[in-house]
């Protein structure tokens, strides 16, 4: 890919500006330090870490309670994400943080010319199959994240840095599950 874009940019340099070439991703260790500082900022300013799946849970709980308020109020899981009615449950720290994630990702992608309407997939899989797998994977992830009380952000990153026992067990389980499943889904990616 890098040689390909190298050739293109060489040819285009004289006639056209190369602004439309997506820039390569940054050095992972540098990104890691940046991400670590963001996480540290959350710790020292808020006294809490980052999250993602929690915001989705709030949205689901609010939607269910809008459609079937009686049903939601009897469920201990939904109740955890709902309020007593005096405040809006969507006025939640994680909901606003995740809105920021979307904005920050878009900002970074725009600056590096990487925003693009496309489907990311392996070379040997159709668009349709990729999207079906994306939905199934997302559903399994959503379910698992609730069982584990958090996802890669709330448990692995946040709890990892705080040396939380459950988070470290969780993190090894994530990599374990991933490597176990990788062989069976190799056609999707390789």
């Amino acid at each position, binding site marked *: 890919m890098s040689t390909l874009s190298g050739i293109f940019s060489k040819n285009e340099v004289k006639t056209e500006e190369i602004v439309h070439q997506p820039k390569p991703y940054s050095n992972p260790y540098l990104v890691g330090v940046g991400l670590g500082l963001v996480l540290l900022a959350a710790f020292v*300013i*808020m006294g809490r870490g980052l999250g993602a799946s929690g915001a989705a849970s709030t949205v689901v709980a609010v939607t269910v309670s809008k459609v079937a308020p009686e049903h939601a109020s009897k469920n201990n899981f939904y109740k955890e994400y709902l309020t007593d009615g005096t405040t809006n449950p969507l006025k939640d720290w994680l909901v*606003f943080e995740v809105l920021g994630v979307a904005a920050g990702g878009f900002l970074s992608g725009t600056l590096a010319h*990487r925003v693009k309407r496309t489907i990311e997939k392996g070379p040997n899989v159709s668009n349709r199959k990729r999207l079906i797998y994306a939905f199934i*994977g997302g559903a399994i992830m959503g379910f698992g994240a609730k*069982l584990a009380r958090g*996802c890669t952000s709330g448990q692995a990153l946040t709890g990892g840095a705080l040396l939380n026992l459950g988070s470290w067990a969780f993190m090894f389980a994530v990599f374990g599950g991933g490597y176990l499943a990788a062989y069976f889904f190799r056609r999707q990616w390789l």
Partner: protein
Amino acid sequence: MMPYYKFDYFSFDFSLVVAFVIGIGFGFALERGGFGNARILAAQFYFYNMRVLKVMFTAIVTAMLGVFYLSWIGWLDMSLIYLTDTYILPQIIGGLLLGIGFVIGGYCPGTSVVSASTGRYDGMVYLLGIFFGIFVFGEIFPLIENFYNSTPMGKVTLPQFLGLSHGLVVFLVVMMALGAFAAAEWSEKVMTKKLGREKE
């Protein structure tokens, strides 16, 4: 004294502004790392691009050292940082499911948000999948509530569990991360050659 919010430096409403700004930093870093792209994330599980491991462990080590030194010099009261309770068995099973979902779908919740906001349709569909998975979890919650609350261990950290000092565990984690980075660099070299592809 840190954490500022716990010492009432600002209101709840302002904390939502903080949330949005911190989120921007989080999303920006994820996109810079290539985590809005399912191919890069999935590559972690085929050993030819280890960005996930490198970024994650560097971030964990950075934040961990920050917390350690800030509390050591007395600026930060670490005990006021929210720590989730450990329920070891549901967390391990949940983690395994997460890993499987990761390989099938190509994202985790945070990265799918970045993927969707940078125009990836697979990221958007993945997000819908997450909502559906959480909905299913919510609907069957009464049936699995017992398992969800099983094997509780309270708020427990690795130093407490292992009976080692905080500093020693921090040191061991740094050493482990450095070992993992060396292994990652080596595996990328071997696997990119074996799979006949270039580093992305």
